[in-house]
């Protein structure tokens, strides 16, 4: 889960990293009050979980409280790369002497976290890395040792950062570890004209797997903007809405991704990703089908199950229970293979629902579902 800038700022502050004074609001009127409290002149920043805010007009300087209200009114509700701005952060402007870049990021290939730092902050770090790779220091961190003062000194020196950044580098590592983050990025980290080191903007990505020991951020279900995704999440389903017409249900993320590709290869577009996992009980199947069938764009549904641990007869029982408990209005193409497939197919054949048909191969099932979607 990605945090908003203001949440990242809060975390940094909790861990003793200096940040500009700032407050968050969703109301232009309150923005005026906040600006007054912060001394009048403020930076108004859209709170969205995407980059390129500045270029999109989501970050503006307001000279006084009245201007802050006006600017907040402009930015709130703005669309930035498909994200609607629901909140703005108002921050005290900072007198910048120099800007740096620092982050800790997961290096998947090495299986470790990497410190990335550069004395050329404030701009797109990819650009710096592409044009002047020597200006970007990348230093792997031993998970057992972490970032000690000595290690932080090494990172700062390699990147050409001033010695005052060492303390921030140590504290940022503490944010990464204590919060179970996969990414902590500060860009820019600035030295003010007064010589203080401040985190001016931050990005933090938390590890969803660590929710069991990081309860403060909730379960993340509020993240779904699409109503179908929200309905699926409420039922504990791993569902992603896409913009096609063939609904897809399968077991296992890899097989479902593969199913989307096979549907696309058959000349149709998948309407969703839905992984019912290993269990595939009647209830999960019914829940999944009802979410998919409530999508008006769906014209046909492809159920693709390979019985590994799951037995196909149990899956077939689930499909029968599902079509009997909900009103099936769209054709279903079912492909069952693997463990107990013959018994599973027999169960569906016996139920003989007019809208449920079977296919023997994944490719054949995809073609049939695509054809049904076209003629619907």
């Amino acid at each position, binding site marked *: 889960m*990605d945090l908003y800038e203001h949440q990242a700022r809060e975390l940094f502050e909790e861990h003793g990293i200096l940040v500009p004074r700032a407050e968050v609001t969703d109301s232009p009127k309150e923005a005026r009050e906040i600006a007054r409290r912060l001394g009048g002149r403020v930076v108004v920043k859209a709170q969205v979980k995407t*980059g390129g805010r500045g270029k999109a007009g989501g970050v503006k300087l307001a000279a006084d409280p009245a201007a802050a209200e006006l600017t907040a009114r402009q930015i709130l509700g703005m669309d930035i790369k498909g994200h609607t701005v629901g909140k703005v952060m108002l921050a005290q402007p900072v007198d910048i002497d120099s800007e740096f870049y620092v*982050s800790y*990021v*997961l*290096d*998947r*290939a090495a*299986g*470790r*976290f*990497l410190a*990335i730092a550069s004395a050329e902050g404030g701009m*797109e*770090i*990819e650009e710096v*890395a592409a044009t002047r790779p020597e200006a*970007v220091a*990348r230093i792997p961190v*031993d*998970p*057992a040792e972490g970032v000690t003062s000595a290690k932080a000194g090494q990172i700062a020196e390699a990147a050409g950062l001033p010695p005052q950044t060492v303390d921030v580098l140590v504290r940022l590592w503490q944010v990464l570890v204590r919060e*179970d983050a*996969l*990414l902590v*990025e500060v*860009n820019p980290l600035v030295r003010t004209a007064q010589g203080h080191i401040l985190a001016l903007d931050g*990005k933090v*990505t938390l*590890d969803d*797997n*660590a929710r*069991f*020991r990081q309860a403060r951020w909730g379960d993340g279900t509020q993240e779904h903007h699409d109503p179908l995704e929200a309905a699926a999440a409420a039922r504990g389903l791993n569902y992603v809405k*896409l913009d096609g017409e063939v609904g897809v249900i*399968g*077991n*296992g*993320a*890899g*097989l479902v*991704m*593969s199913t*989307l*590709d*096979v*549907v*696309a*290869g058959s000349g149709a577009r*998948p309407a969703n*990703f839905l992984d019912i996992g290993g269990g595939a009980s009647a209830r999960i199947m019914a829940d999944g089908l009802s979410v998919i069938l409530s999508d008006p764009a769906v014209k046909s549904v492809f159920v693709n199950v*390979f019985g*590994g*641990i799951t037995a196909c007869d149990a899956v077939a029982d689930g499909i029968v229970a599902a079509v009997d408990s909900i009103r099936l209005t769209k054709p279903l193409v079912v492909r069952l*293979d*693997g*463990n107990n497939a013959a018994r599973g197919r027999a169960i569906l054949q016996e139920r003989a629902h007019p809208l449920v048909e079977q296919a023997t*191969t*994944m*490719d054949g099932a995809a073609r049939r579902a695509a054809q049904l979607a076209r003629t619907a």
Partner: protein
Amino acid sequence: MAIHLTKESKVLVQGMTGGEGMKHTRRMLAAGTHVVGGVNPRKAGRTVDFDGQVVPVFGSVADGIRSTGADVTVVFVPPAFAKAAVTEAADARIPLAVVITEGIPVHDTVAFTTYAAERGTRVIGPNCPGLITPGQSNAGIIPADITKPGPVGLVSKSGTLTYQLMYELRDIGFSTCVGIGGDPVVGTSHIDCLAAFQDDPDTELVVLIGEIGGDAEERAAAYIREHVTKPVVGYIAGFTAPEGRTMGHAGAIVSGSAGTAHAKQEALEAAGVRVGRTPTETARLVLETLRRG
């Protein structure tokens, strides 16, 4: 021969007495796996009867190794305890730890894979189905009855796609199938398995299954070009999947690749790997290649 797992392998199960552990230990035994013990400090000294096969429970991995000579452990413990379980196994210097557990925090995985590597313990997983050498041994949750022994080696991030390809090629058979797991950090990579298959006399051809995210497949492609002389057939899932969570600016720098299915397919094809568009076509490419060879 096969890789990492043979009929000689002596397998411990950490978390054997839990629900998943019981279910899959029974299946592993039925597949002929030499399960020599379970590990649970609170149930040390007891035994568990699996349809007539009695398996002892040890208080620690070290005790299990001392009593049985075990050289593989399969880990089924819940996510919160996985780090401690693998750390204990590595301290006991077990050569192979297969971590089935799903949902382990990445910081824990980084810690225990690093710790294990420093102690000579290979970790497969986490969040993986394990590995199977058909006809010999099965360490994990891969169904043992899909296919038989044969000349194909398989390495995959995805469990169900592994089963699908095993099924498509069930009449040909496999030397070893390894599910390396789909988490961002895993103990054993595609490359580790390619290297082992290259050296395995029982393996004539390798099937490599990848999916979007990271750059493991691109790295595997570079490795194949330099070091693998056996034919490799690839399959990548996720051409139409929506863009996943990005890791911010810094992530793109580290991976050096967009992590898209197209990028992976191109990298593999540039290394001479034939890449199927569907699992079925991938199986057909395997058959063609074997016939030609």
